[in-house]
């Protein structure tokens, strides 16, 4: 890791001035209508920030390089883990998923591999809270919204992850149908896939949404309503699949011949308990070890009595179950304690870092910079801000702009 990053005394990015309403309103509207960002209002909160985060090019390049090294290490760890069934139980994976991953069939081919590494600026420099290895989101905010915000200011976006994702999928599908799998009722997933379908259509690649039950498998080849698929996008979390009969989803992991994005093996490093198996792997994972805070099994950390620790479930989404004693009402914290003690193998304890807030037009906010890699290459960033040092679904989305792009 960079010594400059580790010793930087102040936040290495800043918030820009808000765009005037007459400029920002069309950006928000185009993001809603063209990029299918349909949840810009959550209760009384407007979730698209009218101001950007401004990051010097050298800082962005350092984060992007770090994310690329983390990607390479993640793939190396996966390659080992998928051959080590004795370690799968430590990750907190559902039993049905473990059974499929432990089988001897070949891994299903990859259509594209998308990861998002979530970085936070702390008193110790950059720290990583997690990788979204299985089903990363945020594409509308990180792509069109960021591009339009950049154009309005004459700056450069950090990237265009939806374009990179669609390019990779179109190459894999070779003009054939792309089946886009999501869970019924989860509009926040539908909206990403419809945005992706539009990007694929622009690349002469047809795409349709479906649920995993609607996908038909024959000899490892997927089809949808009788039409063979050139690729499958699995925007359906691995741990949810375990509730369906395995015949609907096992070829997303092993034994499939149709390329998958992300393939089922991506569930391995999605586990927040992934660090608990590091010492059993040959891969050294130096970047992971440098950036992820100390992580232990709940029984081996003083998380109940020390505010220096937090707990989170092995498969939490967008911070759903990240629990800090001093951030929760006592009643809720007691419930968390009960849940962790009841099923410790589904939880993990992690040493907390001290996030350094950045001054913004909405007050001091804590930032999470999610850096995408697609097939191992950095492809853009999804920036979120929250008034508390916990980034969850109610966080505000912000464009990350590079001030002196190299």
């Amino acid at each position, binding site marked *: 890791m960079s010594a400059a990053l580790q010793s930087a005394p102040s936040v290495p990015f800043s918030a820009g001035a808000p765009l005037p309403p007459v400029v920002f309103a069309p950006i928000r*509207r185009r993001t*809603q209508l063209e990029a299918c960002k349909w949840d810009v209002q959550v209760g009384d909160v407007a979730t698209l920030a009218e101001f950007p985060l401004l990051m010097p090019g050298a800082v962005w390049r350092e984060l992007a390089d770090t994310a690329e090294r983390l990607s390479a290490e993640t793939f190396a760890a996966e390659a080992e883990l998928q051959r080590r069934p004795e370690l799968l139980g430590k990750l907190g994976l559902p039993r049905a998923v473990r059974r499929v991953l432990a089988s001897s069939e070949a891994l299903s081919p990859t259509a594209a591999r998308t990861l998002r590494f979530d970085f936070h600026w702390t008193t110790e420099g950059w720290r990583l809270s997690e990788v979204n290895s299985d089903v990363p989101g945020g594409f509308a905010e990180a792509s069109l919204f960021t591009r339009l915000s950049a154009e309005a200011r004459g700056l450069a976006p950090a990237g265009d992850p939806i374009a990179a994702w669609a390019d990779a999928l179109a190459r894999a599908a070779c003009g054939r149908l792309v089946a886009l799998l999501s869970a019924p009722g989860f*509009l*926040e997933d539908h909206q990403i896939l419809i945005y992706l379908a539009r990007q694929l*259509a622009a690349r002469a690649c047809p*795409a349709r949404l479906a649920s995993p039950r609607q996908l038909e498998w024959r000899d490892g080849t997927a089809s949808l309503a009788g039409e063979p698929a050139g690729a499958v996008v699995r925007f359906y979390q691995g741990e949810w699949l375990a509730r369906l009969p395995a015949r609907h989803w096992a070829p997303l992991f092993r034994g499939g011949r149709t390329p998958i994005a992300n393939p089922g093996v991506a569930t391995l490093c999605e586990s927040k308990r992934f660090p608990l198996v590091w010492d059993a792997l040959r891969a050294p994972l130096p970047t992971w070890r440098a950036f992820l805070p100390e992580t232990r099994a709940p029984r081996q950390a003083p998380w109940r009595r020390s505010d220096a620790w937090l707990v989170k479930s092995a498969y939490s989404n967008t911070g759903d179950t990240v629990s800090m004693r001093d951030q929760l009402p006592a009643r809720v914290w007691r419930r968390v304690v009960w*849940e962790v003690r009841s099923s410790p193998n589904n939880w993990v304890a992690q040493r907390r870092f001290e996030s350094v807030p950045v001054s913004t037009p909405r007050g001091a906010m804590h930032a999470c910079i999610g850096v995408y890699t697609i097939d191992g290459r950095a492809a853009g960033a999804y920036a979120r801000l929250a008034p508390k040092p916990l980034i969850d679904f109610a966080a505000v989305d912000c464009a990350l702009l590079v001030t002196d792009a190299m």
Partner: protein
Amino acid sequence: MTGEATYGAWAPEGSPWSAWVKPVLFACMTGDAASDPAGASEEAVPWAPSADSGTAVVIDVPSSRGVGLGLALARLGYQAVPLYNAAPSSGAGYPAVEEEPLVDMRAILVALQAAAPELAANPPRRGAPPAFLLDARRRGHGATASPGRFDNRSVSFTTDFPSARSLVSHGIRRGLLVQIESDEPQADLAHTLRAWQEAGIELALKRLDGSSEPGALSVTRPSRFGALWYRASMLLGMRRHPLGGFGGTIPEPSEGGGFAG
């Protein structure tokens, strides 16, 4: 009218309730919808409170009838706020003719476009109260899932609406639920109405299957009301919905094609 222009008519800039208009259907509009001769139904709303009475209306009726009711209320001085939250198509936009989504949104798409010119010509006045429009079919009751059908069921969440505090800050102290039958709100909507009720919003119910005047509505505490989302997630094995809410779930199609949930 394009989807963007139609959206602009339903969610005019500067109106306080426009932020809550759901963009889903507007984002999926193409010229196909405008070519359909059908439009919003003509509805009479003699039961409607005066637009000066500080009342927010929640219309929960099937299909495009809500658009007709919303348009009628707009003529009385309300701002109609579509909260239709179902993707209409499994593809990138307007549903193909041969497609059969579980909840067919085409009639609503057409009605929204048909009503747009009138709304664009008569934007809501300053201080117009909101009339929220929901599709009572959203959770797919009675629909039969089968291979090839697009499953676009959806759930209404508390965060789809302004909070009671926001309503009160705009002078809204009453809420009127309008639905065709039943004296109870749908289970998902009950969370929102209960939260409003607990915050002091006075609720009433108007059933459209009779001629009676609106009557008082008391919403009982729904199951899991007020539970933190992650608790629901942990206890029920569900992920919280990023659009908010309390862990509502939608039944997955069962192996036999019905619903198991």
